[in-house]
């Protein structure tokens, strides 16, 4: 019986760990993480003061936490709204495509990006999730074609008319090329990144799309998601991460 009681705290701590880790992961890379770090430091200080019996500091921090609940709601308002909205959303790819089809499409996109990267050709590919990318398709050329390495390479070939814009993948098909994406106004982005990276980040800030960007100058692959730029990832890492984002459980 005592074994069962020992397991309960372990399971509770594991669940708490999972929840805290995912909350921190959700805010990682955003400006909110700075505030979250401050809260974590205050929490640790609060716990230490309480255990050492510093009553005045303990009282002060208790009052501070009571006020900070309102402050957190105000500071994290956009993130909370965005997060709650995402909780209720279904994943479009999951409902439209079978897992094998999705695996194939994503591997084609990553392989095409890898080839383009090796050939020093830049690329910008947006994969639609819940938020519609239809408004951005209007700025480009409508296609509605099957995803293939060859087609992606052809679109981004320097001689192609569409190579300067972004490619939009919707419902597992290449829906438009040469599209214009909004540029991020973030000052956090290093000056070494050009317009392509700014466009990838801009679109990921305004929608929940996953945007793959290939740099022709530095010959590296990155992807932007939810306003965060995941720089210089290997093709294998990228494939795994983007599959994780699109929430596909791959069968072994």
């Amino acid at each position, binding site marked *: 019986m005592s074994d069962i009681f020992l397991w309960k705290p372990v399971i509770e701590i594991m669940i708490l760990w999972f929840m805290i880790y995912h909350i921190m992961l959700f805010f990682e890379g955003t400006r909110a993480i700075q505030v979250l770090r401050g809260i974590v430091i205050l929490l*640790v200080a609060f716990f230490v003061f309480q255990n050492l019996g510093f009553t005045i500091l303990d009282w002060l921090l208790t009052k501070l936490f009571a006020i900070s609940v309102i402050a957190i709601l105000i500071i994290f308002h956009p993130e909370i709204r965005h997060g709650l909205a995402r909780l209720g959303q279904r994943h479009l790819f999951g409902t439209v495509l079978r897992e094998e089809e999705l695996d194939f499409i994503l591997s084609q996109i990553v392989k095409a990006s890898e080839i383009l990267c090796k050939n020093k050709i830049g690329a910008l590919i947006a994969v639609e999730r819940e938020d519609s990318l239809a408004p951005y398709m209007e700025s480009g050329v409508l296609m509605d074609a099957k995803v293939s390495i060859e087609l992606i390479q052809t679109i981004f070939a320097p001689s192609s008319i569409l190579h300067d814009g972004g490619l939009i993948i919707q419902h597992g098909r290449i829906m438009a090329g040469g599209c214009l994406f909004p540029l991020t106004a973030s000052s956090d982005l290093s000056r070494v990144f050009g317009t392509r990276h700014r466009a990838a980040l801009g679109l990921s800030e305004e929608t929940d799309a996953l945007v793959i960007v290939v740099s022709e100058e530095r010959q590296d692959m990155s992807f932007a998601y939810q306003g965060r730029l995941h720089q210089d990832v290997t093709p294998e*890492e990228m494939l795994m991460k983007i599959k994780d984002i699109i929430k596909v459980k791959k069968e072994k």
Partner: protein
Amino acid sequence: MSKDKISIIFRVKHWFTYHPWLKIISFLLAILVWFYVRGEISKFNY
């Protein structure tokens, strides 16, 4: 159809290398929160 298989070793390696500090900090925080809540609950004799 060509498919890239992701090995278990890569997944395990990825788990340890993907935000390791975030995992450590969140684990410590989880322990801290658990002990704090247990202390608070015992105060009120739930």
